[in-house]
């Protein structure tokens, strides 16, 4: 079953545009949504959740149309943002006491269990929590109303490496039994190497690629060659960098068979992001 299916989603602002966003996520997997700052990750997430109006396109969550079944769908999903936590001046128990009333499947036992596993003190105010603790509190809320699809916007931003690693481990344990799916946006590609099954890469409001992590890496190659070879390969390069020893560039793997006089290397997610950013998001 597809937990998420976005078709031809468009949203235009005066200075930015999301163009024909398409992506699909199967139940029980983690999808990382990557792109540089300002590429359109947050806008995509907010448009798909009807937090911001979309201009066109369709969004299906749990195979139900978001426009027709929004309230039903929202009973079973959770969205949280790493950058800005809600009600910073309120105590956790006050937020929980209000929040839980909206969800039919809320379970106090699960909530208390996660609060104690995560070491969260209900009497603390949100602003007193570290960034990592805030994310854990958000997750405790999501898991206690038994959300089947958790969407996180930059959950690891501002976290130290230890807290980040811990949070990614929690993500993996959440999807372990195959019932819950996670979509999270990030610009920290090492997060994805650790725990994402699928990756959707957005650049300049357009989806460059949405596939499994291995397929994404397989679709591209880095080439390293002498500067005099650059004119010969310019047409197939997505983008390149020059230095005194030669040039390094990114190409589609299907173009690699034609090359004989350059070195070919597997790219990292960072490489793919950087070279696409250099050419402005053209495929």
């Amino acid at each position: 079953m597809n937990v998420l299916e976005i078709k031809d989603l468009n949203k235009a602002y005066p200075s930015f545009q999301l163009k024909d966003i398409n992506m699909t996520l199967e139940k029980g997997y983690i999808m990382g949504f990557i792109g540089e700052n300002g590429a359109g990750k947050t806008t995509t997430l907010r448009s798909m959740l009807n937090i911001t109006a979309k201009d066109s396109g369709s969004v299906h969550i749990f195979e139900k149309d978001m426009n027709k079944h929004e309230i039903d769908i929202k009973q079973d999903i959770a969205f949280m943002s790493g950058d800005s936590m809600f009600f910073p001046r309120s105590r956790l128990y006050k937020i929980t006491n209000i929040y839980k009333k909206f969800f039919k499947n809320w379970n106090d036992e699960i909530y208390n269990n996660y609060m104690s596993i995560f070491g969260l003190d209900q009497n603390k105010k949100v602003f007193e929590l570290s960034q990592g603790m805030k994310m854990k509190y958000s997750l405790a809320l999501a898991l206690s109303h038994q959300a089947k699809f958790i969407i996180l916007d930059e959950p690891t931003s501002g976290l130290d490496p230890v807290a980040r690693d811990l949070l990614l481990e929690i993500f993996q344990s959440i999807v372990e039994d195959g019932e819950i799916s996670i979509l999270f946006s990030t610009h920290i590609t090492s997060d994805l190497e650790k725990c994402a099954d699928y990756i959707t890469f957005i650049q300049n409001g357009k989806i460059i690629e949405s596939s499994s992590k291995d397929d994404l890496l397989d679709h591209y190659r880095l080439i390293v060659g002498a500067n005099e070879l650059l004119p010969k390969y310019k047409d197939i390069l997505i983008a390149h960098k020059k230095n005194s020893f030669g040039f390094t560039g990114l190409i589609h793997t299907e173009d690699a068979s034609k090359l004989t006089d350059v070195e070919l290397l597997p790219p990292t997610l960072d490489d793919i992001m950087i070279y696409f950013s250099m050419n402005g998001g053209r495929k």
Partner: protein
Amino acid sequence: MRYLIEKELNLNIPKFYFIMPILAASLMMIPMWIYVIVFMYFFWITIPAIYSAYNQQNDLSFTTMLPVRKKDIVISKISALVILQLLHIVLGFIMAMVHNQVYGTFNIFFELNIAFFGFIFILFAIFNITFLPGYFKTAYQYGKPLLISSISITLYGASIELLNVFVPKFHHWTHSPDYLFLQWGILVAGITLYALSILFSIKLSVKRFEERL
């Protein structure tokens, strides 16, 4: 809906603004004053504080993710505001009666009588119509609608006071015991306009909020 209003009263609106109506109403005990100012504190202090708190609390992201209708989000926010407005008016009315008992009714500006409270209901009605639909166009930018509503209510409040001082007939109609019927009429009209302003602002705000989302 009940839970959304509970959320507004418990999480969104800082507790201090439920004490504000008492503080503002106690200004009724200043003798010989322009008492329309007592209600202006609601618009000048409480309103900017509540609407900037919504942004600071990230309320829109939180509330729009709850399994509730967009329409109910707007109605709950307006209902919470109406509760606060009525607190201001009712406590103001009680303190006005105390004022009249202590100092008598005479005032060089508008006296604290039935007509005065009719005009106050209209003051709140003007605010509701000029502020709420403008705010819900974006549901986060409150500066421009607040400026428009502040100018409108200040002009209105000043006009009532100026008419009272400079137009003897107006003063006579709104203060003389001979025109008690008219003064009650102003109160009834004020309450009616206030109720209509709530219905109208809800209708327009819901429409704008749904268009936005």
